[in-house]
């Protein structure tokens, strides 16, 4: 599917790119939720979140190789399911520990302190993985390479099985996550802390624990994105956290930081813009396109697409 094959009016080419864009956007959206939730509850941009995502890709690769090479599990579906669970749990534990060590002691300090600590944590995670896993790319054999050809009118669009897997899993986990935040006591406590931490504490809610849970949930979703990334690209590197991290942060800001549906919407939009720009214009300038649209949206809608205007709390 090279650029030279494209012709402007082709519907099937457009649909093909739509599928590709939504796949990439799902991954960004999952990471963006972690940024937006942490910002919502403690007003901090967690710069290490992209590296937490990178960590989860390594966890996925290691667990996948253990399952398939050492334990000899031949069913890819079962292996991926186990990888997903293991990556979510282990990454969540990491992020829980990071919050305890690097951010909680600085709460109540000046505003920039946790931010600087997050940058430090980002550098630490990158170097830690580089030292432990080596600086070279790690790869896994291609997974779920089956293609599904859907006839549309006179032509076909091709969807690989892994794209369906990525979109379906994302949709399912987002629905589960939405249920947790909207319908459970845990989610209510989380939303209450987001609005007014002091008042929530006065109603007997343990704010520290709620913040920990927020980090755990954010990391679990980043780990889902990590598994998807491994399935999609099959290659991981210690420096792979930075660019997706920045893109996902952009997605969170585009959607309106603090808003969960906004994070998903922003992720999908950034993914689509990137893919569509590469498909129709130039692959070299895809990032320029994504960030320009961010800048334009923020000029006209400073609080993002779905964000609420900032109301001063008194």
């Amino acid at each position, binding site marked *: 599917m090279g650029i030279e094959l494209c012709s402007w009016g082709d519907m099937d080419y457009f649909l093909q790119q739509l599928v590709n864009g939504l796949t990439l956007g799902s991954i960004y959206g999952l990471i963006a939720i972690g940024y937006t939730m942490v910002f919502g509850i403690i007003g901090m941009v967690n710069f290490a979140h992209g590296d937490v995502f990178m960590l989860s890709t390594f966890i996925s690769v290691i667990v996948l190789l253990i399952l398939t090479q050492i334990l000899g599990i031949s069913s890819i579906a079962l292996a991926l399911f186990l990888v997903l669970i293991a990556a979510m749990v282990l990454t969540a534990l990491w992020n829980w520990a990071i919050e305890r060590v690097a951010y909680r002691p600085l709460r109540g300090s000046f505003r920039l302190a946790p931010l600087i600590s997050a940058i430090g944590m980002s550098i630490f995670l990158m170097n830690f993985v580089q030292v432990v896993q080596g600086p070279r790319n790690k790869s896994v054999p291609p997974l779920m390479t089956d293609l599904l050809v859907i006839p549309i009118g006179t032509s076909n669009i091709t969807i690989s099985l892994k794209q369906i897997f990525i979109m379906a899993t994302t949709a399912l986990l987002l629905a589960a996550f939405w249920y947790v935040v909207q319908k459970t*006591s*845990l989610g*209510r406590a989380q939303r*209450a802390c987001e609005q007014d931490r002091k008042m929530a504490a*006065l*109603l*007997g*809610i343990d704010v520290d624990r709620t913040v920990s849970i927020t980090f755990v949930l954010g990391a679990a979703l980043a780990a889902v994105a990590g598994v998807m990334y491994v399935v999609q690209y099959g290659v991981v590197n210690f420096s792979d956290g930075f660019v997706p991290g920045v893109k996902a942060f952009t997605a969170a800001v585009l959607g309106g930081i603090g808003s969960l549906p906004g994070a998903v919407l922003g992720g999908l939009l950034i993914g689509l813009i990137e893919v569509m720009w590469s498909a129709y214009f130039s692959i070299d300038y895809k990032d320029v396109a994504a960030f320009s649209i961010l800048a334009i949206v923020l000029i006209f809608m400073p609080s993002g697409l779905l964000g609420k205007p900032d109301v001063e709390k008194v």
Partner: protein
Amino acid sequence: MEQRGGTILAVEHLTMRFGGLLAVQDLSFSVERGQITALIGPNGAGKTTVFNCITGFYRPTQGRIALTNGTPLSRPLLDRLTGSSLRHLREGTNEVFLLERMAGHEITAKAHVARTFQNIRLFSGMTCLENLLVAQHNALTRASGYSVLGLIGAPSWRAAEARSIERASAWLERIGLIGRADDPAGDLPYGDQRRLEIARAMLTDPVLLCLDEPAAGLNPRESAALSALLRTIRDADGVSILLIEHDMSVVMEISDHIVVLEYGLKISDGSPESVRDDPKVIAAYLGVDDAEVAGAEAELDATVAGRST
């Protein structure tokens, strides 16, 4: 008075200093169980500072704030607790808490003190019902086995959730807001928000309810509804109330006991009648009248004249 008697909250020699400012000076008073106690005084008298000390927002510079849960305050137990480094002590049915040693969320969860603020602090983006459910978070968290059971929708958690929705609905019924259960709390009229806030505080199962100017900004009809609500909380729910209020019609109507502060010092303490007739209180609120000022000036002149001769 057999069941009502006994001190529930004893504030002793409370001093709060902010740099060079003495906001509260050596203040002692007590709140009796089953009574409505009002803390009044001109602006800047230190009333809210006292509240902030009781509810763990400020750590007092000096003094002791003791709360008992259930039985009358036991002095020997309190003395033993003060001598130790513990935050609370239980002996049989007697349990005493030292609030100045506790953090905000512990004061609500363990000592069962609830409070509201001068400005409304509902979770305005959440619905009325959700606001009341958040207040029951602790009970629900326990029922949900710290949320693992809750996440998978276990029956024990569902039952607890149903119970808390029932309690919340009963309160919404009581404050006349059942029809607006699913509306965002921020959309309610001001008076309704005040009552919803009190209902939310009550759902944390307090033994002592601290209200900071609950009648501020209410019209006379809303004030009357508030007074009625506070009386039923005292009489039907058996919860003791400590309130700060400027609206004297509300204070005089519902209070059993009034403490008056001025410049951080207690100037009067007693029944509404005795406080109303106390010359120091009248002077603090109305200023000293002209005749007295004239008298003081004359006295001063005489002294100065006496000195110069």
